[in-house]
């Protein structure tokens, strides 16, 4: 039997032995954001008790408008369906807090942290890299901070949102596709220069 003392937590990208570094004037930077709490929240946006309970736990109501994001100091809440949201947070105990907050209501909280990997793509050419493999119009006139999209990127299904004007994108990908997407983004960014940064 494996000695539990010697086991270490690994992310979906750990087996790639990614080397941190790259040119300082790189057009894009890539960062894996490991182990950030990710929750799927389900409930009825028309239920005032539900939205109030969520606001109490997260500091913000879940967005009701498709493709938008609300955020607070505690969490970022992304619209994924009319009755479903993805919650990002640095609070590792948030699943318990949120489950308690919506207890007794027609709602569900599912922790999916390990099911996904979050990759941040940032830099002055980040938009150019994104539009190589994504059919969504990411021009600033159409898409900016506070908006999220579920679509295809490099032929795989992802959820991403823009977090600042740099621009930066946080791309949520299923763990089994993470290695592919990382290599895809490195390759797509090659012409602009890619720097790999450690999260933190």
């Amino acid at each position, binding site marked *: 039997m494996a000695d539990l003392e010697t086991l270490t937590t690994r992310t979906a990208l750990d087996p790639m032995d990614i080397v941190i570094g790259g040119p300082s004037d790189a057009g894009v930077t890539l960062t894996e954001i490991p182990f950030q709490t990710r929750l799927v929240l389900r409930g009825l946006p028309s239920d005032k008790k539900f939205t109030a309970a969520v606001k109490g736990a997260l500091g913000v109501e879940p967005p009701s408008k*498709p*493709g938008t994001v609300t955020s607070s100091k505690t969490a970022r809440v992304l619209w*994924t*369906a*009319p009755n479903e949201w993805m919650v990002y947070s640095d609070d590792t105990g948030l699943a318990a807090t949120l489950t308690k907050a919506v207890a007794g209501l027609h709602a569900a909280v599912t922790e999916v942290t390990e099911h996904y990997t979050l990759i941040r793509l940032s830099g002055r050419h980040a938009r150019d890299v994104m539009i190589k493999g994504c*059919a969504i119009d990411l021009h600033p006139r159409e898409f900016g901070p506070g908006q999220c*999209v*579920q*679509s*295809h990127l490099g032929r795989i*299904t992802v959820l991403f949102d823009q977090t600042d004007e740099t621009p930066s994108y946080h791309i949520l990908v299923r763990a089994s596709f993470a290695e592919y997407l990382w290599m895809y983004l490195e390759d797509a960014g090659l012409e602009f220069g890619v720097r790999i940064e450690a999260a933190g």
Partner: protein
Amino acid sequence: MLHITCPWCGPRDDNEFHYGGEAHILRPAAPEKLSDGEWAEYLFLKQNAKGPFLERWSHSAGCRQWFNVVRNTATDEIIEIYPMGELPKSPEGIKAYEGNWRRQSAAEKNAKAGVSGT
């Protein structure tokens, strides 16, 4: 490539969607009262229209919601998009719904009898 307007997410490429076949096929409430032929009509026979056709789509790579579409199968023109559980409102959609042989089928009459509780 078709552009399909998801009622939630807006216009997207068709490779984000999953096709769900003919819409408005009601499941018989008392299948034991149908003959084998009538049951086979419910299970296997589809309209295969040339022209406006009522069909279901799911935005599987996006919000994963199902909805109904009236699409002209000859030109691929999308005439109307409407929610699940509702009937089409466009003239083409109404005509396609009412003109479908299924409205007269024993399976659908059986299903509707079950819905009304008789």
